[in-house]
């Protein structure tokens, strides 16, 4: 699958684009792509989901991406810094942290401070990954110091520990709690506003189709889909 064939000038959009999107966007971007294809018959949107840093590496190694959407600015900067973006990244969503506990909340967690108490097995993201950085930020704001049972390398892994009951509590994104449905219970906490994670998107190739998709993803229709999944507005 090569880069998108440039859309004929002045004609309706057609052709194929490849969208590289962060794994946490799997559900929403699958919907967005379908909607986009419906709006523009004759177009095909192929999706490639992986961790943001995976995708950034692939693109810098020459992967045939037309659009790139990440879950953080750092990985976006890797691509733009390498001069691989065809435009300026646009923020299209935000995400904040929420405390996730098993549905029966065995440790009776109600606030961020509870995560630091001795009897609670807490898992968080490692500081190296975006959700971990956010975790560090809210902890600093709250003036708490955590002794987590594990510092996971992705939100999914944190969530996995909670849905399986392995841990009593963890910090994940609002969207993750939403996706997990009945499997976890989300507990909002005020300090979460101190670490808002922003999702940027950019066209990697010059085609009109790529530009159109970026525009679509940052538009109002997309906003509704994203909001339904728990994403905040940029």
């Amino acid at each position, binding site marked *: *699958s090569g880069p998108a064939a440039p859309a004929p000038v002045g004609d309706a959009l057609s052709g194929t684009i*490849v969208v*590289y999107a962060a*794994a*946490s966007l*799997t*559900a929403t971007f699958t919907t967005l792509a379908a909607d986009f294809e419906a709006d523009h018959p004759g177009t095909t949107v*192929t*999706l*490639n*989901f*992986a961790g943001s840093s*995976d995708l950034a*590496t*692939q693109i810098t*190694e*020459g*992967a*045939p991406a037309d659009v790139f959407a990440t879950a953080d600015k750092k990985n976006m900067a890797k691509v733009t810094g390498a001069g691989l973006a065809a435009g300026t990244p646009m923020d299209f969503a935000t995400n904040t942290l929420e405390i996730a506990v098993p549905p029966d909340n065995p440790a009776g967690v109600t606030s961020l401070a509870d995560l630091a108490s001795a009897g609670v097995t807490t898992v968080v993201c490692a500081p190296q990954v975006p959700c971990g950085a956010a975790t560090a930020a809210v902890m600093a704001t709250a003036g708490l110091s955590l002794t987590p049972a594990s510092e996971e390398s992705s939100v*999914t892994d944190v*969530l*996995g520990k909670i*849905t399986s009951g392995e841990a009593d509590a963890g910090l994940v994104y609002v969207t993750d709690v939403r*996706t*997990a449905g009945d*499997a976890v219970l989300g507990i909002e906490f005020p300090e979460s506003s101190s670490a808002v994670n922003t999702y940027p998107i950019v066209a990697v190739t010059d085609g009109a189709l790529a530009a159109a998709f970026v525009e679509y993803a940052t538009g109002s229709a997309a906003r509704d889909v994203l909001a339904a999944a728990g994403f905040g507005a940029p």
Partner: protein
Amino acid sequence: MVGAALVVLPLVAIVARVDWAHFVPLITSESSLAALSLGLRTSLAATALCVLLGVPLALTLARTSFRGQRILRALVLLPLVLPPVVGGLALLYTFGRRGMLGAPLRELGVDIAFSPTAVVLAQTFVAMPFLVVSLEGALRTVGTRYEAVGATLGARPTTVLRRVTLPLVLPALVSGAVLSFARALGEFGATLTFAGSLQGTTRTLPLEIYLQRETDPDAAVALSLVLVVVAVVIVAVTYRGRGSLMGRTG
């Protein structure tokens, strides 16, 4: 039999978790079927490649001796120890568009990365050690006595290889190929990094499972059950352990 329990119990646990009501629609969904069929095809290709490349390698390791042989053997086993993601990076650095071989190849119009070819390559990379290890062991155990007999009967080395050596180690070759196939079928990390995860093109079943896990962990478990069943069936049908060829007068 604690050993068997250690392996079997987790599988039982998985089966117990499956939500059977959603099972059939899930595994017959377009994306699942596409992933399964892609995975089977690439795994077959990778297995063929493993046999093609692995047999000469195993022969070299078992039947010749040269300086650095032990190093070569250790290197061949490396994909076993390398975390698959790093393996994928290594492949990307080699066959990627900007890689050592990828760049010149691209000049020639061959583009490997992020295509089904890349999946096959990634699978071959991780699966080949299985074939080489099985085969080298069998070659050494069988020894060279029958080959010597063949040679004194006037058979050329290629004839000896074809009519004595390979038939003698056939059971090991088959079991090695089956192991390689199974490993290729389950390959995930290197594929994700090197080939990406494009539905229908490079998204094999393990990648599909990984993605499902982002949205619905239970669905991921159910899907992985499909993988398990496919693998068990293939292994049970073809792999019998290495047959004891040595009869009483062997």
